[in-house]
């Protein structure tokens, strides 16, 4: 199918394989490999991207469904080599271990902060419940979200007191 989709501000017009997922289209056609394929079943959240401004699992959307849509991926976070605020907070709070979940986590945190600029710890946990971190580094991710939303200061960073 011929389609037109805006990804990270660029408009792509091309033939898309009708049975491909948006995830496969992003990674294999557009070579945007920052978005990861974890479970391919909507369980792990590694492939989370923004579709028309809302977070979705790119493995649970057909590429053809994105005809006429706007997509943002992790590649749109850093601008001119400068980390986004969310990425910088992840780095500051050691919220990245192996890094496989990170792209999806950052997308889910962007969605969470879009809907709720000062989430509580419980709301953060709910916001990232669709993203698995197999390094189990959730604590640092939660702290990164508290940090980027201005709810934590340097002196209290790095503990386990928010569990």
């Amino acid at each position: 199918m011929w389609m037109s989709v805006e990804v990270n501000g660029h408009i792509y017009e091309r033939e898309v394989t009708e049975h491909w997922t948006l995830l496969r289209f992003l990674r294999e056609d557009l070579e945007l490999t920052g978005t990861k394929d974890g479970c391919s079943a909507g369980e792990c959240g590694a492939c989370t991207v923004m579709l028309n401004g809302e977070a979705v699992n790119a493995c649970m959307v057909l590429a053809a469904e994105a005809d006429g849509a706007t997509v943002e991926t992790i590649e749109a976070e850093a601008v001119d080599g400068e980390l986004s605020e969310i990425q910088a907070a992840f780095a500051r709070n050691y919220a990245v271990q192996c890094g496989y979940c990170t792209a999806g986590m950052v997308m889910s945190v962007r969605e969470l902060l879009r809907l709720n600029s000062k989430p509580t710890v419980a709301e953060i946990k709910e916001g990232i419940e669709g993203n698995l971190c197999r390094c189990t580094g959730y604590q640092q991710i939660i702290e990164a979200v508290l940090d980027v939303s201005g709810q934590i200061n340097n002196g209290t960073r790095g503990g386990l007191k928010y569990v």
Partner: protein
Amino acid sequence: MNDVFKYRAPTSRAELFGMLAAHGEGAKILAGGTDLLVDIRSGLVRPELVINLKKVEDFSELAWSQSEGLIIGPATTVNDVLHDAKVRDSYPLLADCALTIASHQLRNRATVIGNIVHASPGADMAPGLLCLGARVQIASQRGQREVPLKDFFTGVKRTVLSHDEIVEAITVPTSTARSRGSYRKLKRIDGHDLALVGVAVTSTDGAVRVGIGSAAPTPLLIEGLTDEDPADAVVAAARDAIRPISDLRCSKEYREYMIEVFVRRLLEEVR
């Protein structure tokens, strides 16, 4: 997807119904896709044509009217219902059910009607919709018909729908608006998980209804109870209706036990 299929996105009801009539069993409807794409990938279904119905005009509708009540359209997502002011005000039980489904990303895609049409015994929207007396509006090229939700399910992932039919709307009557009641879902973890059991209990003008998921081949509705019935009688009615199995998530006995616990707790809340 490993399987090759064609994709179409009709923009009118007539076009959609024509495609369904022409392709029969070979066509599958794509709404949220959160069940269909998993089933295609695992080889459970092998459609030759996938029809996206989200581009059909008005199918994203979530409306309310005094005569028809709440009208949920085929492309209305679970998050649309969860965040809708009218739902939160008049049918908060539906928001309860919606919040327990999967994760935020999936709720942005998954549709309420898809949750019902997929007909999983553990469909989280079912116990609430059953208690609230929801009705299913079915349509095809041949015409329209209406079925009470309690008569819609016929078995595990089976419904009264024919291959050329779609559910065009689920309606929830005004008579059950502002019913008291809520939904409890037992999961293995706090986060994203399927239900071990799910129980809704409502009280509407003295009538008590119990909706139960993951306890029989189909979601169950237990009616004919009143606010005067002792808790033991309600529990006995629930025990008579359920037919749980043991599976990888938990044992039959645990399901029976927790259904009783939830029915008692939820009854106390509505009384």
